[in-house]
Structure formats: structure tokens, C-alpha cells
């Protein structure tokens, strides 16, 4: 009469294609939402999915329907006090009295936002999109923890390529010794006895003959112990270990003088985020130090870093000095990987630039793994750029770039990613 089918093991993502299509179709809106989300969230919080709001009317599927007006009679349950002929004011907004609610739902178009959640992959995909990251880097960043296979002792089973010769032979030697031991002992005794017999006169011929035969036999037995046996083979054992095992600290340095406006700060934020993502891929623990500066530098929290406004002149060296101090005090090179990302509009007090160069060359560059600098300005370069070019000439792990759009950010990191990918 009935067939029972257990479908639980069948695929469950029947709708994923439709979901992808939905996202592709509303990419414009979703991307806007992602960009807004980026503003709202912290750099270190990049690696999660995101709730995205789309105005409902943008994705409504229109059909012919009745609008308000005309004459309609609606039936409702739960009458308590009304009698025929009662009149009442039309409820505003419909919801309150409930009267009219039934019919209105035929035509009502909910204006609520359509909220849904992007998965982490979908979010990063959209986030990366206008950064123009090469695909390889993209997958590398989006991938969750990577494992590295590390040697962990030896096993007795494995593939031939992993045979450890020294270990195997050492094992074989021990086995040979062990297996031959009873014969060797007897052999030694037999040889000694034979010697004794030969030393004494008269020689006991018969006994000597027997001993010689036994010795021959024992030698054969000892030789018969195989030189190496499958039993002796030892293979290098490898286990998967989560790769990021070290710690890094990332210094974000930003110029907050009056000329850095909202848009520039947003760009800078993306720049910092990208470095953070990269570091996160490679290090287990990351600390972020935010240093902002105008004429004096100050270490702040992220909120203040991006959202407080200051005005005043610009002395970049103040920030570099603070960075160098923080490095020396809190992040010894022996246990930390240091990365610095600096964003600025290129403005600097003219006489300060050589000081910056010297600071970098002497107190910072020798210790950091990578130093990335972006100059967000459409104008011509100023003295700071020239000073930095000198630094670049001396240090290959110093990258700098003038940018005016998100697409220009990635090249700053190109070397950084290249090195890791290979």
C-alpha cells in the first residue's frame, strides 16, 4: 500500500544552485551591503559570514493585484461587541483594529528589508571582488586552516618512498644479532672447545670431527639469518598539523590629519583588512596595534583609529618612532613576526621626511617581515615618497604604492603573496 523511502542520505543542497543565482542576480545590492558591513565591522572580524539587507521592493516579483480603494466586505472572527449597523473610524495603518487586514494582505507589499545571511565564502568572495586579487591568492585566503604535514617518528607501514634507510638497517642489524644469538653463542663455545682439543695431545679425533661439523652447521645457520627483512623496514611517519603555529603582530599606521577624509579612510581600512587576512592565514595568533598620528602619534583602539577626527599638521616620524618603541618593548623579534601597514595621503612636514627614512632604515626595517605603504592621493608625490623610495631601494620587503581605488591595493602586497604561494 505504501512505499517507504529513506531519503535522508540524499544530497541536501538541492537549492544551492538557486541560491547562487539569487546572489548573482542581486550582486549589486549585496555588494553594497557588504561594503556597508565592512564599515561596520572590525578589521579582525573579517572572517565571518554576514547578514545582508536588501530592500524588499528591489526583489519583489510583481503580479497583478488590487490596490487600496473600492468597496470590499471582509469577514472576521471573534466578534464581541459589534452589532449590525455599527460604524467606526477606518483604522490607520490597518494593523491596529485588524479590520481590513484580511483583504489587504492580497495586495500588500511588505516593505521590510529582506535580510539573509551570506556564508563566509560568499562574503569573502564579494569582499575580494574589487580588490582584484588573483585567484590563487583568493583561494588561499578564503581557505580555512591549512595543514602542514610534519614528521612524527617512524612507523612500520608506509609507502616505499618514505622508507628511512638508516632506521631500517639499524633494525635489521638488531634483528640479525637477536636471531643469530643462540647459534653464535653455541658457535663460540664449539670453537673454544675445538681449540682446546687441538691444544691438548693426543687429539680426540672423533670429538674434533663432530665439533668441526657442528661449527660448519652453526656458521650456516648464522649466515642464513636474512640481512634485511620486511619486518625491519621503517617508514618516516608524517602527521597533519595545523599550519599557522606562530604569532604575528600587525601595526596599522594611519595619518589622521584633516586631509584624510572618509573615503580615504575606507580605502585604508580595506588595505589593513587585506593584510590582516593574509596574516591570519599564516599565523595562529595575531595582534593588531593601531597607531594614528598627526603631529604626535598615539596608540588607540580600532574604533578611535577609524572614526575619530583630528586636524593639524603631519609629522610622520612621530608614528614611526612610536612604532619602533612599541616593537622594542612588547614584540621582540625572537617571538613575533612583525608586519607594518601604513596609509597616508603623502603629506608630511618637509623636514621630517629624512628623519622618517633614517628611522625606517635603522630601527624598523631590520626587524619587520614586510612593510607596506600606500599613499592615497591623486596629487604629485611629496618629500615622504622620495624618502621612502630610498628605503625601498635598500629593502626588498618594503612595498609602496600610490592608489586611488580599491583595485590598486593588491599590488602593494603582491610580493608578500607571491613569496608565500610558492
Amino acid at each position, binding site marked *: *500500500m*505504501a*512505499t*517507504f*523511502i*529513506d*531519503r*535522508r542520505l*540524499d544530497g*541536501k*543542497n538541492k*537549492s544551492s*544552485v*538557486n541560491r*547562487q*543565482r*539569487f546572489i548573482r*542576480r542581486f550582486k549589486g545590492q549585496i555588494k553594497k551591503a557588504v561594503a556597508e558591513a565592512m564599515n561596520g565591522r572590525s578589521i579582525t572580524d573579517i572572517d565571518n559570514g554576514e547578514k545582508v539587507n536588501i530592500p524588499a521592493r528591489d526583489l*519583489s*516579483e*510583481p503580479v*497583478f*493585484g*488590487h*490596490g*487600496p*480603494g*473600492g*468597496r*470590499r*466586505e*471582509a*469577514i*472576521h*472572527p*471573534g*466578534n*464581541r461587541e*459589534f*452589532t*449590525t*449597523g*455599527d*460604524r*467606526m*473610524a*477606518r483604522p490607520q495603518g490597518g494593523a491596529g483594529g*485588524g*479590520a*481590513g*487586514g*484580511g*483583504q489587504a*494582505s*492580497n495586495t500588500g*507589499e511588505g516593505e521590510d528589508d*529582506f*535580510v*539573509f*545571511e551570506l556564508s563566509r565564502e560568499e562574503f569573502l568572495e564579494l569582499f575580494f571582488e574589487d580588490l582584484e586579487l588573483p585567484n590563487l591568492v583568493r583561494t588561499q585566503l578564503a581557505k580555512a586552516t591549512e595543514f602542514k604535514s610534519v614528521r612524527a617518528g617512524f612507523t612500520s607501514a608506509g609507502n616505499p618512498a618514505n622508507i628511512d634507510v638508516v632506521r631500517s638497517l639499524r633494525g635489521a642489524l638488531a634483528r640479525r644479532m637477536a636471531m643469530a644469538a643462540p647459534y653464535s653463542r653455541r658457535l663460540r663455545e664449539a670453537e673454544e672447545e675445538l681449540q682446546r682439543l687441538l691444544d691438548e695431545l693426543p687429539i680426540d679425533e672423533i670429538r674434533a670431527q663432530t665439533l668441526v661439523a657442528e661449527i660448519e652447521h652453526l656458521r650456516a645457520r648464522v649466515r642464513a639469518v636474512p640481512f634485511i627483512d620486511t619486518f625491519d623496514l621503517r617508514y618516516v611517519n608524517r602527521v597533519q598539523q595545523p599550519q599557522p603555529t606562530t604569532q604575528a603582530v600587525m601595526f596599522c599606521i594611519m595619518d589622521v590629519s584633516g586631509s584624510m577624509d572618509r573615503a580615504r579612510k575606507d580605502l585604508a581600512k580595506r588595505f589593513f583588512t587585506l593584510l590582516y587576512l593574509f596574516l591570519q592565514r599564516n599565523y595562529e595568533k595575531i595582534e593588531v596595534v593601531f597607531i594614528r598620528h598627526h603631529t604626535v602619534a598615539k596608540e588607540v583602539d580600532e574604533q578611535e583609529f577609524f572614526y575619530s577626527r583630528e586636524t593639524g599638521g603631519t609629522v610622520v616620524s612621530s608614528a614611526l618612532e612610536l612604532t619602533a618603541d612599541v616593537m622594542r618593548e612588547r614584540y621582540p623579534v625572537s617571538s613575533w613576526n612583525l608586519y607594518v601597514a601604513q596609509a597616508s595621503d603623502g603629506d608630511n612636514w618637509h623636514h621630517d621626511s629624512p628623519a622618517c627614512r633614517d628611522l625606517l632604515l635603522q630601527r624598523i626595517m631590520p626587524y619587520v617581515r614586510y612593510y607596506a605603504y600606500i599613499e592615497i592621493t591623486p596629487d604629485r608625490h611629496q618629500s615622504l615618497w622620495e624618502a621612502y623610495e630610498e628605503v625601498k631601494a635598500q629593502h626588498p620587503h618594503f612595498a609602496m604604492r600610490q592608489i586611488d581605488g580599491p583595485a590598486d591595493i593588491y599590488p602593494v602586497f603582491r610580493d608578500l603573496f607571491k613569496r608565500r604561494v610558492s
Partner: protein
Amino acid sequence: MSESKLIADSSEWTFPMIERYNEVIGQIAVNEFGLDVYPNQIEIITAEQMMDAYSSVGMPLGYKHWSYGKQFVLTEKNYRRGQMGLAYEIVINSDPCIAYLMEENTAMMQALVIAHAAYGHNSFFKGNYLFRTWTSADAIIDYLLFARNYVAECEERHGEEAVELFLDSCHALMNYGVDRYKHPSPLSLSEEKQRQREREDYLQSQINDLWRTVPIKPLEAAAEEAQRYPAEPQENLLYFIEKSAPLLEPWQRELVRIVRKIAQYFYPQRQTQVMNEGWATFIHYTLMNRLYDEGYVNDGFMIEFLQSHTSVVHQLPFDHPYYSGINPYALGFAMMSDIQRICREPTTEDRHWFPDIAGQDWIKTLDFAMRNFKDESFIAQFLSPKLMRDFKLFAVLDDDLQDELEVTAIHDDPGYRRLRLALADQYNLGSREPNIQVWNVAHRKDRSLTLRHTRYHRRPLHSESTQEVLKHLHRLWGFTVRMEAVDEDGKVELMGECPAGK
């Protein structure tokens, strides 16, 4: 004795257990109540799979389209946030009748769902005249498969985007893809495939003929000018587009047809919400009680069942903050039970109102009611004064010519008939949806297409969405499309045009 009959007393279900439930329920349903059902195919699925099933609007295999993705995203969000429980079951009008049970259900729920879906809905699908005329349960799965493959093929040949945009436009007119009065021809996969090619060629030749530009004699032209095309207004917009839109490619016509056929498949469901759910609920309620009487289930089972049952058939009063109209389960279940009551213990009032059924065999009467009505006529026929009193129904007239709302009828003697008519009208698709028909094609002029909306009780079209739908219609038609409204005095007014004229 009852001890030995008890099927289980654990709330964890197992396959043998639900098979046993199904067997017992099936026996009672068929032997005692004479239900005529399709064979059942009961599938156990997970919550994720249930969300998949949800988002494809109950089609076991749908073609790919972003709107289903949107539905999925929405369902998933609501479910994950706990704003919405998933339905315990989805049942598909097909032969064999496919019912999905969720693995999370308790043993009681599985039994309930089997009774509700596999016997209640199933017998409704098989018996109700609307389903019998409009859908062919044995062919739907094949047809959906055909549609899915065809759409995929089109995407390959013409690009995903072109197909998707085109389907958007068809979906916008989906509700106008059915012949309300003509009987449809049944679906069949083999015929579909076989005829599809011929149809493409034939249609194309027909259309070319219609739009022939070879000059004809002026006299004839004048005569034809007066002749309208189509000769009579057409209510099935999609059908009209499929057959007459001048610029569509053959594959596009086929897509229109697919959407139209699927609309047709769902058309009965939209018209029998109250009846379908009411019937299934009534059946499960009756069957569960029989199980209990026979000793197949114990008190604990029954208490759990009643708790779930009462929450399903609960009707909130209009002034409750969560009130959202009349609950079709509540109304349907109450009406079905009420018919049973009228048959078994009629009062004087019942004898006066329902002379035909009072005191009759309730099983036959209910079977008759289930087979031969849709929501509108079912309510008009069977809503009893007692029920109107129980529900405390009242009618509110909202007329934009008056400043205030007026209570026009309540659950009292003078009000019964008016209440009943108004409630029936509320379930009439013809008045719920705007009445829009193809009026004219200016086939000797600019080829523009004119639709007419015949207003009902002066209700206007929703202006924004109408504009949007007209854009979609324009995409299908290829030339100017126009919407006119005809009011009750026959006055015609232009409501919208795409591309916007003047």
C-alpha cells in the same frame, strides 16, 4: 487485549513502527471510511531537505530559477533564527502520492502526518473535481522533469540570463496562465515531447500568417479593420502570448507553455485551501481517534496529538495582535466536523437550513462535499449558522466612498446569509484577483496589445505593481502594451502603458 494491540509507547520512531502505523491507519481509512487514495510513497527527509522542498514551492523537481533561491534563503533564515518551524510534512499531488516526513518528528507526529497527508490530502487530490479536471497526478513528475531539462537545455543554448529574465516575465503573469472555464487537456510526457517539435513549427507558421505584411486590397482592409483580434476577450494571458506574440522564438513559446502548465497544476490548490486542509485535518482527527478507540495508541500519544491538533485548528480573534485572517485549518476542520454533526445529530435549525443532508449518512455526505466543491462553493453551501455563531463572524464593509467602516452583518438571524455570501466571495479567486483579459491587438497598426481590467466593486489595480507587470508583459509581447480599466458603468480608462506613451 488492548495491551497487545498497542503499537509503541516510545516517542522515538523507527521504520518498522511507522510502517505498522501506516498499515493500521490505511486499513481504517479504506475499510471504515471508504477513502479512495493513490498509492503512497512516504519519504523520510532531514530538515535541510525540507527547506529545499519548501523553496521549490512543493515541486519535487523544479527548473532552476533565482526566485526559488530567494525563497530558500528566506526559509533558511527564518528557520535558523527560530522564527518559524518547518511544516511537519509536504505532500505532492502525484501518483503515487509523495509525502515527505521530517526525521525530527516524534513517533506521534509521524503517525499524524501519515494520516493527514498520505490519507487526508491524498484522497482529496484523488477525489476533488478540480484536481481531477486540472491536474493529472500520474504525469506531473514526468512533466516537471521534462520542464527542468528543457529549461536547462535552453540555458545552454541561449544563455542563463536570457532564460532567467524571460522566466521572470512569465512568472509575473503566472496567475493569468489558466483557463478558468475551459477544461484543460491532461499532461503527458510522451505526448509533450512528441508534439513539441511539431508545435514549434506550426506555431511559427501561424504567427507569420497573422502578421503578414503583404498588402491586401483596401476594401478588405477596411472590413478587417473593424474586426477585432482576438475576436473575443481572452482570459488566459499566457496562452494568448504563447500562441500570438509576434516576436517570440520557438523556445520562448515553449517556456511560456511550461510556466502555464505549472500554473495550471497549482490552480486547484489555490482554490481549495480551506477544503483541502479542512478535509485532511478532519481525516487525521477521525483516524487518530479511531486508533485510540481500538487501543493501537495510548493516552500519552493521544494527549500529545490533541495538543498539536488544537494548536493547528486554533482561530485567533480579529483583535489579537497576531491575527492574520481566518485560519483555513480552523475553518475547514470546523466545517467538516459540522457537516458530520448535522448528519448525525441535526437540530431544528439544521433541518431548516440543510434539509438535504440533515440526518443522512455522514461518510457519504462528506465524501460528496469533498468531491464536488471548491472553497467558494463549499462555504456558500455548507457554512451553518451554528458555525458562524461559534466563530463569532462579522462582516465589515470598507467602502472608499464612506468615511467610516460599517459592520454590515453579524452572527444573528438577519446576518447569516449575508455573512455566508461575503465569506464565500472572499475565497472566490475571481474576485480576489483582478479580472484582466486580453482585449485587443492593433494588428493592422502598431501591433500594440490592450488588456482590460474589469473592475469589481470599484477595486482598482495596484498601480506600482501593475506598471512592473506591464514591463514584463512588454518583454513577452515585444510591442506596446496597454492596460485599460472598465468600471461598472462601462467607462474605459487608460491605466498604464509600456513603454510609457505620450
